[in-house]
């Protein structure tokens, strides 16, 4: 019986890899992106890909072989084609004013006033600034006094690959949120991608501990949530709100958080304390993988509160605007 089980799993792993490797990886939507990608024969792919599950843990070298940096020969072609594409699509009316000759006395060039990024990002009002700033200081202390020390101890005890696996597991568990929101945004491609990911990662990824979907099949996560769905339908952020513990948000995204709460399997764990505990564990685990990021952002800032608020708004607006990632159909 045991031998049979082992046999079946070996065969399924082999089948999975042949499917995964034969699958044409999804590349950015520019057709010329294909030029950046040297053809790798199936044999090369296989030799570059060690056996499972080591493959799931360490496949960076493999990933890099698929998408190396541009070489000198490929660049000119790309440039020429992209130039055409972009010029047709976008109207950069200010081009002629872009002559950047810096004169200290007379500022004739005013192109810096209406730069490209200004059109992309809209500012969000912050009438609760006093409360929000208070909560910023609260969350800051929470991070430095509780979250960071816990994550640091945890980081020493648990090796990195295991922490990555825990993160993968929670990401996989968030499937309903991403799937439903893809559907709500009428992003059928994205919903299909999420189903494929969930199926592959829940089975061959050992209940989501590994992420073979991204690593081997190039099926990337569709990071959608209810806040973004509302944004896609034209609802603006309203105002900026910095919640205690939960951190930066907006009125719209707070409503989104409530929607996502009901789609999150962890919310249904009973008793409530256990559910909270799991969420805290998830937070500690994810923090342990990114210690130093918050500190860097804070150190670089002249006013950390404004910096964090702006970073959040930029991040969310880009997420709402971004095109659905290339998926299986490519």
């Amino acid at each position: 019986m045991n031998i049979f089980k082992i046999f079946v799993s070996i065969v399924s792993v082999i089948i999975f890899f042949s499917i995964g490797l034969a699958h044409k990886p999804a590349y950015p939507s520019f057709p010329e992106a294909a030029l950046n990608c040297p053809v790798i024969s199936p044999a090369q792919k296989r030799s570059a890909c060690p056996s499972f599950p080591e493959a799931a843990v360490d496949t960076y070298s493999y990933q890099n072989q698929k998408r190396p940096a541009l070489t000198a020969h490929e660049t000119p072609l790309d440039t020429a084609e992209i130039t055409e594409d972009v010029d047709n699509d976008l109207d950069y009316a200010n081009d002629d004013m872009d002559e950047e000759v810096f004169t200290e006395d007379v500022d004739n060039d005013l192109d810096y006033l209406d730069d490209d990024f200004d059109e992309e990002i809209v500012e969000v009002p912050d009438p609760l600034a006093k409360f929000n700033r208070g909560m910023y200081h609260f969350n800051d202390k929470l991070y430095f006094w509780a979250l960071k020390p816990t994550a640091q101890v945890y980081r020493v005890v648990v090796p990195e690959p295991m922490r990555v696996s825990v993160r993968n597991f929670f990401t996989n568990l968030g499937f309903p949120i991403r799937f439903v929101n893809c559907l709500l945004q009428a992003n059928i491609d994205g919903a299909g991608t999420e189903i494929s990911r969930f199926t592959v990662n829940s089975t061959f990824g050992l209940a989501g501990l590994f992420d073979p979907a991204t690593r081997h099949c190039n099926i990337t996560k569709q990071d959608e949530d209810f806040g973004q769905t509302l944004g896609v339908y034209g609802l603006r952020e309203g105002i900026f709100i910095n919640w205690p513990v939960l951190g930066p948000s907006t009125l719209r995204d707070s409503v989104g958080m409530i929607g996502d709460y009901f789609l999150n399997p962890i919310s249904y764990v009973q008793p409530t304390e256990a559910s909270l505990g799991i969420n805290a564990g998830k937070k500690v685990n994810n923090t342990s993988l990114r210690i130093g990021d918050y500190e860097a952002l804070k150190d670089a800032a002249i006013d950390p509160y404004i910096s964090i608020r702006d970073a959040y708004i930029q991040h969310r607006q880009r997420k709402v605007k971004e095109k659905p990632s290339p998926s299986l159909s490519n």
Partner: protein
Amino acid sequence: MKKLTIILSITIFLIFQPRAHAGVPLDTIQAHINHVLDVLRDPVLKGESATKSKKEKIGSIAADMFDFNGLSKRTLGKNWSKFNKEQRIEFTDLYRAILEKAYMGRIMEYTDEKIVFDKETILSKNKAEVQSRIITKSVEIPIYYRMILKNGEWQVYDIIIEGISMTRNYRSQFKEILAKKSHEELLKIMREKLGKA
């Protein structure tokens, strides 16, 4: 006929390559980054004592890589015109020092992460975006460089890390500070930040 087509296409390719190739944004930024990596990996510059000379070398690469005047103008936006000549010069120096201080620490933490350059997009006749990624064991961080052609050189005027524009982030801070405080006070805050009060 087939042979002729092949020869013709190769000829055309060879004719057009050098012109399109010279100083393209992606090559420029990649060369700068490789230069930085060479400094970081330099076996001669090991240990505490070498940290200072490493930082100096990286600082001089940054001077070539970034358009600090343009960076300062863009972060201040409309407020730039309200600064007088001396204030502009001081602001540019302080802003540069703040950026250097903020990012040097992170650069020095570099171990063996992979840096991949994906593609470049020409935004307009003198602007381009180069997309790159830093790949560590646990995360993949997309970093986009916005570049401008100035005096025949492609220079960075904005870095977009994980979708967050650095220039815009500082601009929102300066804007809000200047809404309540004077230019002198802003410069004072920046001096204090650098411990040069």
